[in-house]
């Protein structure tokens, strides 16, 4: 298909040009960003100076020594909200991605390996969902389920199943023609064994790259859903939600209400995207998103 070729072309690894250096820089930068956010999430009670859900001073204070990122409408400390907010976004996005993986990977593996009518039916459904705007799909699911973080995770996980399915199916198609698979079959390995013990381990690099890229994407989707008011309910500290409640005060010049939460969303997504980019180049394969 022409489309697949083009997607490959976009994410074509650039090894041997200047790539290795840039890719390594991206990989390291990305890992540092993600590590910093993970540390922030794990040690949130030690890092955050205030309780994120109760008032810590006068409302609308600009950034000062006491309140590094200022305070919001309710006098809550923005820095503490951001520190605790990293927990919500990581929890939702990682659990959602794990669900998509555990559905998308086996389906893609079976579909690509078995082939035939089953493959055609699966592919058609997955391609259709893939073509549909993921945010609209997530909005529809989240709106029907109601706003809470479990439902957000569920909505996001459904959206990213086709991403894994397509990538894994494509790789399985080419791997199953290789000699080691034929050798395994000659040794009397069963189909299930071939799929999960011979082909699956060879997919690990692909899975890692697709994981990083889809997490980057899912972060933007999660933050987007909460910005639209379809994810968490107050007073949960959440980056996208804080952006939403901060926006009406832009005209008052209270820039710190939106600047920091949005910057964090972008940094975290960028961190994962850099990791995916850097690893994709290392493994000499194109990541698709």
């Amino acid at each position, binding site marked *: 298909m*022409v*489309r697949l070729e*083009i*997607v490959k*072309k*976009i*994410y074509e690894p*650039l090894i041997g*040009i*200047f790539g290795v*250096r*840039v890719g390594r820089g*991206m990989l390291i930068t990305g890992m540092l960003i993600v590590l910093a956010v993970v540390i922030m999430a794990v040690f949130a009670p030690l890092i955050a100076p205030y309780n994120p859900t109760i008032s810590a001073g006068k409302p609308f204070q600009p950034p000062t020594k006491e309140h590094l990122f200022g305070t919001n409408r309710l006098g809550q400390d923005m820095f503490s909200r951001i520190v605790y907010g990293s927990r919500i976004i990581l929890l939702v996005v990682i659990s959602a991605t794990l669900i998509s993986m555990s559905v998308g990977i086996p389906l893609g593996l079976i579909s690509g390996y078995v082939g035939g009518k089953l493959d055609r039916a699966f592919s*058609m*459904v997955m*391609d*259709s*969902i*893939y*073509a*549909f*705007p*993921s*945010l*609209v799909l997530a*909005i*529809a*699911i989240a*709106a*029907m*389920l*109601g706003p809470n973080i479990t439902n957000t995770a569920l909505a996001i996980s459904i959206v990213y199943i086709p991403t894994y399915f397509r990538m894994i199916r494509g790789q399985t198609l080419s791997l199953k023609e290789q000699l080691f698979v034929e050798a395994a079959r000659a040794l009397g390995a069963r189909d299930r064994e071939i799929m999960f013990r011979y082909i699956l381990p060879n997919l690990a690099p692909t899975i890692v790259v697709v994981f990083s890229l889809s997490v*980057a994407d899912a972060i*933007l989707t999660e*933050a*987007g859903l909460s*910005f*639209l*008011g*379809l994810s968490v309910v107050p007073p949960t500290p959440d980056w*996208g939600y804080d*952006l*939403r409640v901060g*926006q009406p005060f*832009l*005209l008052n*010049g209270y*820039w710190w209400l*939106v*600047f920091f*939460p*949005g*910057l964090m*969303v*972008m940094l975290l*997504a*960028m961190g994962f*995207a*850099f990791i995916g*980019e850097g690893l994709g180049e290392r493994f000499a394969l194109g990541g698709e998103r």
Partner: protein
Amino acid sequence: MVRAGGLARYIAIRALMVVPTVLILYTMVFLILRVIPGDPITAIVGTKSLPPEQLEALREAAGLNKPYIVQYFEYLWNVLHGDFGESLVIRGRPIAADLIDRFPATLELSISSFIVSVLIGLVTGTLAASRRGGKVDASMRIYSVVAYTLFIPWFGMMLQILFGVQLKVLPISGRLDPGLTIERITGLYLIDSLITGNIEGFKNALAHLVLPTITLGTVLSGAYTRLLRNNLIDVLSQDFIRAYHARGVRGYKVMLHAIKNAFIPVVTLMGLQFAILLGGAILTETTFSWPGMGTYLLDRIEYRDYTAIQGTVIFFALLVGLISLVVDIVYALLDPRIRY
């Protein structure tokens, strides 16, 4: 193999292939809206307690009192005839009318953002390809990742703070200043104001379009940067480029020829990007209070207007099918090798 009628045949087959896609998406939306636990009518009513007759009336208005299978085909039949049902909140208001009312705003934003993203992609991609392997190339690669991960509401708000609040040069919300009107012909303000000779309206609508367009256009541009760079590098290594050089054609003219050849796949990417564009449009519309399909959908969700949510999402599905068909046709027109 090229033969007479090849193009018509290709278009016909493509059109047929859109049918299953749209059906699958319709089924999926139907399932999401029906099977997910919780009765939509109870959700609309919320904590209010209504007498059972009224609940039944609401259920009937939403078409929810019939068996699922009947609902499925009845609604499909209606949608194919342009009937998206009636709003549950504003009783008697056809949803199709709302969609027609809101769609041009989203279309205008999408087209302008698309143009901006391709222009940015063209400049950055050409720069990267012509300085291949250098610092410029490396920066453009980083740019393409960063642009993709820009969080639309945040980027939009930063532009609002800079150009709307600090410099006060551009409006930060809506499509038009209150008090101004543009006679509706196509619903695209820029075109309508030009047709009716409304220069003031045109200027105002254009000013309102600038920030949302830059926001969405920048986010979408990263993929074009990459695609154009890689295509250009391919094209620049081909024989006909060497022939131009050999004949002494100037460097920038050779580049123009190369760009023309590297551009065709952009059409396909446009189709792939369309889903991202629509998703991004919802966030952009919300950030800039842009009265399009995205803000309409969220507004209806707030009122729990079940039939309107259903209609809007189905409309998105039809749009996706239609765009993929259009993209395939344009691609075939540009590249005569693509035929069945």
